[in-house]
């Protein structure tokens, strides 16, 4: 099990495409009237002022509305149908009446649309939609005897109430899609000649467009549609893709999505210019319908073009594609849903809503299959869609024959999905036979039923392998057959096959049957029966099927391969029975993050409870081995549970790093420096909370690296550097924490300049010289608030706010920043972050009768001082020399005003801590041990406690406080700590 987590951006379960396909009807408003006609017909007529008008217009309006809903932009046919419907409506309407004027406008729009074919000049489509919605409301209002609001007045209010749930899902998936597009675009920019990437982008854009249509976001839809055309243009002409343009489209979509998340009803941001630019990019295309991915349906039968054995074949890379699993799950649920809908349609053939559901299922599958280049699947989905469209548009009535045909399509589709999942591919002829029939049906053929029996007699794709007809060309392997029948286990088969190959190599070839017989793994009768079946009825004795031959004939090995196998004797087992390439299916469940956090919290409590039990002093006295064994079993399970609960929250840095790739591109363009970003370790997993927090600091650091770190190209050439700057972004594990490294090969930091600036700003005494302060300390100065050495404040950076933000964010995560820099060679920022925010490694120390936890990350070393090693200054400040440096000693007992702590330094332990940019020694009585502790909030009812970052529940159930080293040191150095904050 693997869970995908994401923060829902809008209400609604964060499921993806599934819901887009089979969710609630998106434009319920349009169809509302038809749903309600039933009850209206009972009671309405008596009190209707315009009953006749309403009765005659309503169905026409509804049809127009549903045509609008299902409209594919750019599809000439559906546009002209739209105009036709519109005319019909107009013919019924009294042009002098309240409906007259708007309907006339609508007719104009529809005609314009039909004429222009593809483009949507001046938002005609939108206007048309508005009018139709309004007209539906108006007719309804008339029926109820209410007055009709004028079109203009009601138009904004009549806007569809956006389905919040649907929108939530859309935003969720759109976000992901945009990220994919962005990533691909960036790849494309570095190497424009990758048609497969363009196809990928196109696929995602297409899906996104479809989803926009469902919401509906017509502006976005039309923009994306244009983008798609532009992409096609790039593919067909081989032109370089205008990456910038598409990135601005992505940005536009992102900002639109953000706005939608805030205000579901908001209008699309300004996009006229963008639209024009995309249109310009798409310019020059031949005026073909914008569906080049789907070959036009040929009239002649395609099924006959395939032999009885040819199987559906999908591109190799598709089978290995990790996203296949997601597609499979999605497609299967679509099919399931459409089958359910089909059953309902059987009873209610005129229910357009149901047909729509099935239509969308096939449409979605078609979209995904299209960009994965699964031609057969696309073809099937396309034809099914075409047929369904006929029903949907009311041109044809769905008969039981049609329904069973669509059922067969579902089956065939399922068989192909099974193939994707690693099963045998269905026969191509079978699939295409259905495709042909679908096509015939959608062309109005009524005798499709006649061909159905023929279809039934043709081998059902999934079982084809087992039927006798298929045998001559495709003899199944004996071993596989036996395994299938449950007579032999996989391992046994593998072992025998290896043996067979060894024997073959040794020049004593044997049949598999013989080997099995030798090992007495099978009863001879079973073996014979299986062999008989394998050879198609011939007696086993007569059959001469050396194993290698069988393999060759089955097409699993070529003759050459057999020879090499013979020549190169013992090979690992796997080669014996060639494994089919399977798409690994990882089932995922999307879980709300809140629930997950609760789980992690509760596991944390379980760990504590378990420790309390196992460390209970009462247990010491019990010498029962069984109890202790059980206890340690519980301990182990608890630990495992904790580990897996924690891993649930881990996410990779991939998307964060991807954002940085984008950032580098933008910043380098803006600053006029060409930059190579080298990313490594984006697989590294971190707690979701950390990943969420790390974005801002990274943005600052990378901006700084490019803007301040890297020199302009000419300056780089002067110092014998490549004109292209390089920024490394790396993530890796280091001793229980994660390090994210941002390294540039720029000019590095000039310690003198920083020092001068620090003195100027009063951060250091005026007489500070380079000898007084270490280089590392100088580097740390740049983390001070408001510190900037930049001479000019640029658009990108230089205000000196950035590094302070970085420091605070990182410290809030209990992380650390290390800075390395060499003048002229570049700088590196190393962010050391905890793997998770919920648990820390801590050293438990005792002071007096109290215990405290010091985060291990802050500890450099600990030691027992030699007598007389510490010095006193002015009879107060104590210090000690540690590795050649004098460090101040802080007594924890004194800081916290505890009673009964040790007085003499020599008797206790000094812990060298590093925090807030300085090192110091903390004097404690004793070190009790080191362990991982779950960080607990001290309770929101308390004021912020300085020097304490939280509490940890120790094994005995008591609370130990976790020290906040930075806060502690800052405090200690600033003042002597009073008894209470009060005095």
């Amino acid at each position: 099990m693997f869970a995908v987590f994401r923060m829902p951006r809008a209400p609604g379960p964060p499921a993806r495409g599934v819901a887009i396909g089979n969710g609630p009807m998106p434009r319920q408003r349009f169809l509302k009237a038809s749903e309600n006609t039933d009850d209206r017909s009972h009671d309405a007529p008596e009190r209707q002022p315009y009953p006749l008008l309403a009765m005659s217009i309503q169905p026409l309006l509804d049809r127009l509305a549903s045509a609008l809903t299902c409209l594919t932009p750019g599809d000439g046919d559906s546009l002209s149908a739209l105009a036709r419907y519109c005319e019909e409506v107009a013919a019924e309407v009294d042009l002098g009446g309240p409906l007259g004027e708007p309907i006339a406008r609508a007719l104009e729009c529809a005609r314009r649309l039909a004429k222009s074919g593809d483009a949507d000049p001046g938002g005609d489509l939108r206007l048309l939609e508005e009018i139709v919605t309004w007209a539906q409301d108006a007719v309804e209002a008339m029926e109820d005897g209410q007055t009709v609001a004028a079109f203009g007045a009601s138009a904004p209010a009549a806007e569809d109430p956006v389905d919040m749930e649907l929108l939530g899902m859309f935003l969720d998936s759109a976000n992901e899609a945009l990220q994919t597009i962005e990533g691909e675009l960036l790849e494309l920019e570095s190497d424009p000649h990758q048609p497969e990437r363009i196809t990928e982008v196109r696929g995602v854009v297409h899906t996104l467009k479809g989803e926009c249509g469902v919401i509906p976001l017509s502006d976005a839809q039309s923009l994306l549609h244009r983008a798609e055309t532009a992409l096609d243009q790039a593919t067909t002409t081989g032109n370089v893709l205008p990456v910038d343009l598409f990135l601005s489209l992505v940005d536009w979509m992102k900002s639109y999505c953000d706005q939608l998340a805030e205000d579901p009803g908001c209008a699309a941001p300004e996009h006229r210019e963008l639209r024009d630019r995309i249109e310009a990019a798409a310019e020059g295309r031949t005026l073909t319908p914008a569906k080049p991915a789907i070959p036009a349906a040929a009239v002649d039968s395609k099924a006959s073009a395939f032999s009885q054995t040819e199987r559906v074949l999908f591109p190799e890379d598709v089978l290995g594609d990790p996203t296949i699993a997601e597609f499979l799950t999605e497609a299967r649920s679509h099919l399931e849903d459409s089958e359910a809908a089909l059953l309902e349609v059987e009873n209610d053939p005129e229910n357009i809503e149901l047909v729509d559901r099935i239509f969308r299922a096939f449409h979605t599958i078609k979209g995904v299959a299209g960009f994965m280049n699964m031609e057969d699947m696309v073809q099937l989905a396309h034809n099914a869609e075409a047929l369904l469209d006929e029903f949907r548009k009311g041109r044809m009535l769905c008969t039981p024959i049609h329904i069973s045909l669509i059922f067969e399509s579902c089956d065939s589709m399922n068989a192909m999905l099974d193939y994707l999942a690693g099963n045998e591919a269905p026969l191509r002829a079978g699939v295409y036979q259905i495709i042909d029939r679908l096509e015939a049906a959608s062309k109005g053929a009524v005798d499709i039923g006649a061909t159905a029996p023929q279809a039934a007699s043709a081998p059902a794709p999934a079982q084809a392998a087992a039927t006798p007809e298929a045998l001559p060309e495709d003899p199944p392997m004996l071993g596989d057959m036996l395994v299938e029948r449950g007579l032999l286990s996989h391992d046994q088969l593998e072992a025998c096959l290896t043996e067979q190959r060894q024997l073959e190599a040794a020049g004593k070839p044997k049949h598999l049957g013989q080997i099995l017989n030798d090992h007495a793994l099978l009863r001879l009768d079973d073996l014979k029966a299986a062999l008989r079946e394998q050879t198609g009825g011939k007696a086993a004795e007569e059959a001469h099927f050396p194993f290698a031959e069988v393999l060759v004939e089955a097409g699993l090995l070529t003759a050459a391969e057999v020879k090499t196998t013979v020549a190169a004797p013992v090979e690992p087992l796997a080669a014996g029975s060639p494994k089919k390439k399977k798409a690994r299916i990882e089932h995922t469940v999307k879980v709300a993050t809140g629930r997950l956090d609760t789980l992690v919290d509760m596991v944390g409590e379980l760990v504590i409870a378990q420790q309390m039990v196992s460390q209970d002093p009462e247990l010491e006295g019990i010498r029962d081995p069984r109890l202790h064994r059980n206890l340690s079993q519980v301990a182990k399970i608890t630990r495992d549970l904790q580990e897996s609960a924690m891993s649930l929250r881990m996410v990779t840095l991939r998307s964060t790093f991807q954002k940085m790739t984008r950032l580098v591109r933008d910043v380098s363009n803006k600053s006029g420096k060409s930059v190579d970003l080298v990313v490594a370790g984006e697989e590294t997993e971190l707690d979701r909370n950390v990943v969420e927090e790390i974005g801002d600091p990274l943005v600052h650091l990378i901006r700084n690296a490019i803007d301040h770190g890297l020199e302009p190209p000419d300056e780089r050439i002067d110092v014998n550097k490549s004109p292209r700057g390089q920024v490394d972004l790396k993530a890796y594990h280091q001793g229980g924490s994660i390090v994210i490294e941002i390294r540039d090969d720029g000019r590095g930091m000039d310690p003198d300049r920083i020092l001068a600036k620090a003195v100027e700003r009063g951060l250091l005494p005026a007489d500070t010289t380079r000898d007084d302060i270490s280089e590392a300390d100088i580097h740390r100065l740049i983390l001070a608030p408001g510190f900037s050495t930049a001479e000019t404040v640029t658009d990108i950076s230089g205000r000196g706010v950035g590094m302070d933000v970085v420091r605070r964010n990182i410290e809030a995560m209990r992380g650390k920043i290390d800075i390395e820099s060499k003048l002229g060679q570049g700088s590196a920022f190393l962010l050391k972050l905890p793997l998770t925010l919920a648990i820390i490694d801590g050293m438990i120390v005792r002071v007096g009768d109290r215990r405290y936890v010091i985060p291990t990350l802050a500890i450099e070393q600990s030691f027992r001082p030699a007598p007389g090693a510490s010095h006193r200054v002015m009879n107060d400040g104590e210090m000690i020399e540690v590795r050649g440096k004098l460090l101040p000693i802080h007594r924890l007992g004194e800081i916290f005003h505890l009673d009964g702590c040790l007085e003499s330094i020599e008797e206790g332990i000094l812990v060298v801590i590093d925090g807030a940019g300085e090192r110091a020694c903390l004097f404690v009585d004793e070190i009790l041990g080191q362990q991982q502790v779950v960080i607990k909030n001290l309770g929101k009812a308390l004021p912020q406690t300085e020097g304490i970052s939280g509490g940890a529940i120790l094994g005995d159930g008591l609370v130990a406080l976790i020290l906040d080293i930075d806060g502690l040191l800052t405090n200690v150095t600033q003042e002597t700590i009073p008894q209470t904050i009060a005095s």
Partner: protein
Amino acid sequence: MSQDTTPLPVADGIQTALSGKYLSFLLQAEEYGVRILRVREIIAIQDVTPLPRMPEYIRGVINLRGRIIPIIDLRLKLGMTAPENTAHTCIIVLEVEGQSEGEIVQIGCVVDTVSEVLDIAAGQVEPPPRFGSSIPVDFILGLGKVGEENQEKVIALIDIDRVLSQSEVSELTREASESTAA
């Protein structure tokens, strides 16, 4: 119970609002009441981990089944002398409003002993007395009169949210002046 005193019409609203069930407890022989709905549980006094550099009335924190909750000494909070722990000393775990809207946080209050759950009717409530500014009474919702005719007792019904959210500054200054006086 005697209901002989007809409540003033003006005060009626407050009194009705204050009627209900209260958990009463003792602090230095004085009886206080807190709304039963705010009480989550009552636990025996246990080892409290003190927090450094906190006002004296914050005793520290305890582990309540895996959750860390702060412990307040109500005696100190209300300006009485620090108590000795006895066998009766216990902690009332209360749910109070957090800083942010709608947030509920748990907090433990050390009291000398809990006595009983009282049902206080509207007629038994009187508005809080005024002693002038020297004695802060704004956290007292009202006074409940319970018991039989001749052994009637008065219970101060306290507003626990008010007690805990009372401006730290005034609290701290008061404490500071006390400690200097001592």
